[in-house]
């Protein structure tokens, strides 16, 4: 099931994503160099390439469309203004997601007063329900998705960065600004919370 270090990754194969080739990395480097030189066209290209990824990550952590868009605006402004500080030691996506993570934390702090409202807007519970068999997997996926949404932000961020962005634990540690072991621990806690879902599914089947 695993392609190994030299081939496409398991996550990429699973979801039809191509691995990032050296040429793509060079392309990113060229793009950010042009942004450093105040090339607006390059910046727009960079925006189109990374804004969906950044938007999704911000959405996972903030969950208010208006504030997410504001945070995305801030992230892209920081990229435009501080492109010269990108030192090339990490992937461009890692650098940008690190900026996004910090902006998301600040945005969450600003809107903390409205957390109660946010919780109300989220789906309740993760209990499985509905017909057997044909719907079972869809129900499980839906329940898992809801359970992931209800994880504490720091755990949800690690799950999102691992399974959606296909990042290594070292890259995730860099983005969220914590030691590698903390990343692993957060993931363990998240998996433990999700384990009950699989137990429930096991009882059903």
């Amino acid at each position, binding site marked *: 099931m695993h392609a190994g270090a030299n081939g496409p990754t398991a996550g990429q194969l699973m979801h039809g994503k191509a691995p990032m080739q050296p040429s793509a990395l060079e392309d990113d480097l060229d793009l950010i160099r042009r942004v450093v030189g105040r090339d607006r066209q390059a910046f727009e290209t960079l925006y189109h390439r990374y804004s969906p990824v950044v938007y999704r990550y911000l959405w996972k952590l903030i969950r208010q469309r208006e504030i997410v868009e*504001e945070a995305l605006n801030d992230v892209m402004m920081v990229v435009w203004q501080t492109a010269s500080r990108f030192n090339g030691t990490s992937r461009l996506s890692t650098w940008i997601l690190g900026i996004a993570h910090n902006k998301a934390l600040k945005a969450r702090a600003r809107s903390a007063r409205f957390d109660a409202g946010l919780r109300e807007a989220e789906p309740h519970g993760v209990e499985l329900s509905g017909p057997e068999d044909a719907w079972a997997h869809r129900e499980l996926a839906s329940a898992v998705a809801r359970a992931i949404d209800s994880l504490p932000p720091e755990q949800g961020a690690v799950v999102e960065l691992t399974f959606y962005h296909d990042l290594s634990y070292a890259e995730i540690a860099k983005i969220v600004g914590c030691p590698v072991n903390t990343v692993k621990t957060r993931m363990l806690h998240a*998996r433990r919370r999700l384990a*009950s879902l699989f137990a429930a599914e096991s009882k059903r089947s």
Partner: protein
Amino acid sequence: MIRRRNLNDMQDPSDQSGGKGHQKVWEILPWYVNGTLEGDEHEFVARHLLRCQSCADEVVRCQSIATAVRSAEAATSRPSPEHLARLMERIDHGSVSAAPERWRIRVREWIEKIRLVFQETPSLFRWALAAETGAIVLLVAAIIMQGSVAPSFYRTLSDAYTSSEPGRVHLQVVFADDITEREIRTLLSSIGATIVAGPTPMAVYTVALVAADRKAPARTRETLALLRGHPKVRLAEAK
């Protein structure tokens, strides 16, 4: 049953399949599933999976989590189409802070909060609360009128320079690809600057204005204007 086995694995990693080795594998299984383990670590996990049913089951569960994560909320994963236009407008106008948008959101939050308080307050006290709220609004307005607006989160290229090294002004400069070493020397000599760092991977040089006086920001601005007007300088900004 599955849940119990998972928890046991996490709490007592020595129960089966190799003690600490099992615990290590268990911790990094998500990154085996997303394919980011490399070299020895990947091989170690692959070998362990051949003899550990518990970890093999957990791989399947991690794959289920990955599928759920990827299939969730595709509809909300993109900014609105006009977002880029607003961003470019912000860049064009040099408005480097989203302060106006934040103020708009905050004002709306306050209005909503006041409305909720009013709803839960006996009518006798509403007028007193209204007066208090009005006083707060007036106070905030007075502060704003005095220029005590929220600080900008970003520094523009033309902002006053702040350096940790007294008496030295550092600038970041990116030269055109076709500039020669001689042209760089001539240019820097003409503005009284020397290279102190760089180039970085982004081709950024840090130059110091020789004997610059930090109390003379006008000279810094003139130098930046001169550099920005040079045909072979792509970027110049105060560091």
